[in-house]
């Protein structure tokens, strides 16, 4: 299983009628078992690239292949976690997961879907809150439900669009650990592709970090391999000299433009 993006170009027409070249010549091959982050300033096209990988958007030119098969639409091999939770407000937590799993895996017996829904909701610690509506729980819980929903589809590729941007720092730390745990042990998921604004988050979680430049420059500025052994400990990793090296490189790359501060 690999996710292969080749020669991706994407332009948008702005409200004023200007054509904006958002993605310019992106080549990225994510290998099985890899966690890859995309980092860059707002407007660099990282979310666009993620949506293209998910099949929600089509590139102008270039191809996306999942395990050699061309991606033109969303598929059960790829699941997404959106920035703003995106739970359906009238469904309980468990129904949000069940409905998505049944829709994404129509061939599967519904008893099996329910079982998987229970497993992942339990894994993120939400089984006892399963009957609550999204409006009744905190932002962190909503995002955990969204993560459970994505894993419950049992995708090979998990696509995350700034998944922890809207939660507080402590919740974020817990969610990051849960994510890595689910990805490494409990699930079928092989590849994680994540959009983030957080430099430390990218280093802590990823094997490789794609640093993206603002248009009109070529989209991929650099790809940095973190080379830190797993399991990683969020406290001691900060003292790792290699962590420091990667952090400085990322800061250097992202501050070249110096247009807006980057969350550290």
């Amino acid at each position, binding site marked *: 299983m690999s996710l292969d993006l080749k020669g991706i170009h994407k332009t948008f027409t702005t409200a004023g009628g200007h054509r904006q070249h958002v993605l310019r010549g992106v080549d990225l091959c994510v290998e099985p078992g890899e966690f890859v982050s995309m980092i860059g300033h707002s407007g660099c096209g990282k979310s666009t690239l993620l949506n293209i990988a*998910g099949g*929600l958007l089509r590139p102008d030119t270039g191809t996306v292949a999942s395990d050699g098969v061309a991606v033109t*639409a*969303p*598929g*059960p091999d*790829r*699941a*997404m976690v*959106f920035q*703003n*939770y*995106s*739970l*359906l*407000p*009238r*469904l309980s937590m468990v129904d949000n997961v069940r*409905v*998505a*799993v*049944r*829709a*994404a895996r*129509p061939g599967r017996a519904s008893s099996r879907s329910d079982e998987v829904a229970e497993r992942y909701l339990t894994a993120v610690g939400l089984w006892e809150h399963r009957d609550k*509506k*999204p*409006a009744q729980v905190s932002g962190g819980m*909503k995002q955990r439900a969204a993560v459970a*929903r994505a894993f419950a*589809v049992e995708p090979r590729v998990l696509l995350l669009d700034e998944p922890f941007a809207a939660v507080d720092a402590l919740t974020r730390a817990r969610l990051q650990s849960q994510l890595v745990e689910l990805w490494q042990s409990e699930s079928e998921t092989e590849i994680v592709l994540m959009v983030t604004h957080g430099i430390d988050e990218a280093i802590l979680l990823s094997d490789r970090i794609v640093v993206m430049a603002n248009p009109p420059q070529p989209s991929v500025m650099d790809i940095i391999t973190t080379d830190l052994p797993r399991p990683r400990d969020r406290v001691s990793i900060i003292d790792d000299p290699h962590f420091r090296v990667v952090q400085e490189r990322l800061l250097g790359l992202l501050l070249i433009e110096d247009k807006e501060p980057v969350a550290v």
Partner: protein
Amino acid sequence: MTDIKTHELIESPPAPVPKPEVAGPPAATGWLQRAASTTTMAVLGLTTFTLLWAWGSTYSRELPSPATAFGTLRDLLASPFYDHGPNDKGIAVYLIASLGRVFKGFVAAAAVGIPVGLLMGANRWAWKAANPLVQLLRPVSPLAWFPIWLVILKDAPQAAVWVIFITALWPIVLNTAAGAAAVPKDHRNVARVFRFGRVAYVRHVLLPDSLPAIVTGLRQSMGVAWMVIVAVEMLSGGTGIGFFIWDSYNALNLSKVISALLVIGAVGLVLDLLFLRLGRAVAVEGAHA
């Protein structure tokens, strides 16, 4: 009141319908005080109106005084269900006949209008195809349809039902379309990523997200339908509250006309409150969570 702006509808898919809101009095301290001031002012307003009416009626031989009209109203309400032949029935009999017609036309309008509205809001092509027709027909007084239905059905009371259908149709279609067009992009993306089938999309995304707007449409429709039924029954004759008013006018009994007016108003108020309740029941907290 929630209403969709006409000029927006002509150009493009409509803007999202805001949540139904009820204008309340400015905050006072404690509900008892609030209720007391509300009641006091209501009584004051009604008394002023009645006094003006009483004063006006002293200058006219035709206009009955409030005392006469309320007396007639009391008599009408005292025996509401009697039936002495086609032109002499209790007021409740007329009301029930009118409510029945409104209900039939309204249900038919909802059965057609909700699916059509959902389709128009969810599908660009359906919108482009149907919107010009809707915009052309919507400004037409529903009464203008009466001759058409009469020719088709050859039965005046039946034609009245279908005039109500037309009346109720447009607000339902347009509000439903507005609701369906305003399904949040997040929800559409969820449906796409998890590959919701058509049934799952309608059931879990389109319908729940459009529901508040649909109820707003139903409420508007019911309001207009209840107004139009009086007019159409004046045309159609037969049993009904509109006929009752016309018949009372022909008998030069304005007291009965005024009584009927008050009863119609009260029934309309109750209908509106029912739909307001329904609107609150289907509103969802944190709808865009």
